[in-house]
């Protein structure tokens, strides 16, 4: 195997350096999940322009970085939002951010949801838990160009009513023309009069024209597995199925090796994939 060395020129900005951005607001969505709203300086707005599905590396000075999907409107790169689950050291410090404080941002990185390919089709968005966060930019994009798409369905499942994200927006979206929002929880309480059960149950409540439908999924892998089985059963062509995958990320540029899933690097080949790209491995244990 005789190889020629292959060296290509660098990109224009250094993807390894975090850029300080000011916090505008921290909002609690649930008892352990919050949304960080940031305002890059106007002159740097273009730097953080992103596509729905991409993520940033958020840096807390001296503590570390985490990979978080961007969950704001792609048409407003001057107001970047990240919805974050407070679970470790970095996210705990992030959750205490005050207005005017700075965090470091590297990005955006990764592949994006196929909102162009979905034009002219019905779109089903299926979100589980915090999986709604990386899908919210899709919804903004679809609603902004409403006429370019057919029916839009959002199916959203969470653990309990108190774990639901973006409740005000869910209400607003459900009122839009040709948009169905169906929400379910695994366990309800006395005040909850909505659906209770797994998110796949919700398929009984929506009509679907499979050949003309694009599906976008995000949530825990096992939830996506069952959802895919259900969509397959209903005749959705697998090339119309897209999902966002999660793995441990450190460098975000395809060098540290942590985010590998089979031959794919989730940070640069993903996090959004079409199902056929992953079907060889999806659902298999500990890939």
């Amino acid at each position, binding site marked *: 195997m005789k190889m020629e060395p*292959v*060296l290509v020129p660098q990109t224009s900005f250094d993807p390894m350096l975090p850029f300080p951005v000011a916090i505008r607001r921290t909002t609690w969505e649930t008892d352990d999940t919050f949304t960080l709203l940031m305002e890059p300086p106007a002159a740097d707005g273009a730097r953080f322009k992103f596509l729905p599905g991409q993520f940033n590396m958020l840096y807390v000075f001296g503590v570390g970085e985490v990979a978080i999907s961007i969950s704001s409107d792609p048409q407003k790169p001057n107001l970047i939002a990240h919805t974050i689950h407070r679970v470790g050291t970095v996210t705990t410090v992030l959750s205490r951010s005050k207005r005017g404080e700075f965090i470091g941002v590297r990005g955006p990185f990764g592949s994006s949801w196929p909102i162009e390919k979905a034009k002219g089709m019905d779109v089903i968005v299926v979100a589980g838990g915090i999986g709604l966060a990386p899908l919210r930019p899709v919804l903004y994009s679809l609603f902004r160009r409403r006429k370019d798409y057919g029916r839009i369905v959002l199916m959203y499942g969470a653990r309990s009513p108190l774990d639901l994200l973006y409740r005000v927006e869910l209400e607003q979206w459900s009122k839009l023309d040709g948009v169905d929002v169906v929400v379910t929880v695994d366990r309800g309480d006395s005040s909850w009069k909505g659906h209770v059960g797994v998110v796949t149950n919700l398929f009984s409540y929506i009509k679907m024209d499979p050949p003309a439908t694009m599906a976008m999924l995000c949530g825990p892998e096992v939830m996506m597995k069952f959802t895919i089985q259900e969509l397959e059963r209903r005749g959705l062509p697998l090339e119309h199925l897209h999902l966002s995958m999660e793995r*441990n990320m450190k460098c975000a540029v*395809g060098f540290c090796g942590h985010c590998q899933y089979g031959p794919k690097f989730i940070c640069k080949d993903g996090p959004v994939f079409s199902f056929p790209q992953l079907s060889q491995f999806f659902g298999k244990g*500990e890939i």
Partner: protein
Amino acid sequence: MNAPVRLEAEHLGALLEALKRRGYTTVGPTVRDGCIVYDEIYSTADLPVGWTDEQESATYRLKRRDNEAYFGYNAGPDSWKKFLYPSSLKLLTARKSSKGFEVCSETNGAEVPSYAFIGVRACELNAIHIQDRVFGSGQFTDPTYRARREKAFVVAVNCTQAGGTCFCVSMNTGPRVGDGFDISLTEVVRDENHFFLAAVGSGRGSEVMEEVPHSAAGESDVDAAEGLVNETALHMGRELAADGMKDRLLTHIESPRWDDVAKRCLTCTNCTLVCPTCFCSMIEEVTDLGGTTAERWRRWDSCFTLDFAKVAGGNFRYSVWSRYRQWLTHKLAYWIDQFGTSGCVGCGRCITWCPAGIDITVEAQAVVGVEPQEPKGD
């Protein structure tokens, strides 16, 4: 200067001097702590003259040779990645400021060492080419690797003996060095003769060679050198049926053999440390006590560690079997999809340095159901 030339052993030092005059830091093999490692060498006296190594599964011993060959050994625990892709690298420094913090890259514009690698084997040169692809061929490239790589001068050495765990022939990576060297040497020690058959592979190699005393190589010199390399190819310590290995591994991705290996694997990460192509790293933040200055460091990591695939919701590779599978399947299968070649160069280091005696050639072939061959060798 295209034809090979004859370089007498006593003039090897002149080669080192010529490189040092040009500002290169000459790094090469030297004996330390009972093995042959790569470090700065100041003269030919630092080379492992008259030493050889005996390698087998979980075994490495140095032994005295019956001659004074400079390069009469095979792959030690070090590989050239320690120079091109250092095990610890400061990436940036951040300092608290009125606008949060200021970040300064420690890699862009950093001083780049000029290395001359003395004694690069065919398998190792292939490993360098593989890492060229890993760090240089994607959307993002690693500036430290590229800068060091561009400067690095390669004095390659054709192997004239096969190691106990070598299988470069199976991986089509040796024992003869391919393209990409500046100077190559084949050492011949025979009767009263001790010389190198030297070939030049680049413009700068040619320039350096001008300053080293050499003479025309006779036909018998060439035959002697070629003969040794050809003979080496027939005495590989291991074999691996590499053809179609990727597809066969993927077909057997859930083989019960993984559980078997898991009973033996200690996840000690020796294999990934010694492997010349493994590239996984971790990113670490370090602060001073005052909390005003922070540094970000990159260090070698290994897919064998427990936390490697950990995420907020759990751990994708909690079990030992899945981590061993990840390493082997990445090396022999996924790598091909990612970078266009196998990740394995058949150097045998992982076999030698695994304390549990796990052998990649045995395991890969067991997983896909190939009968193990009797190991060849003297």
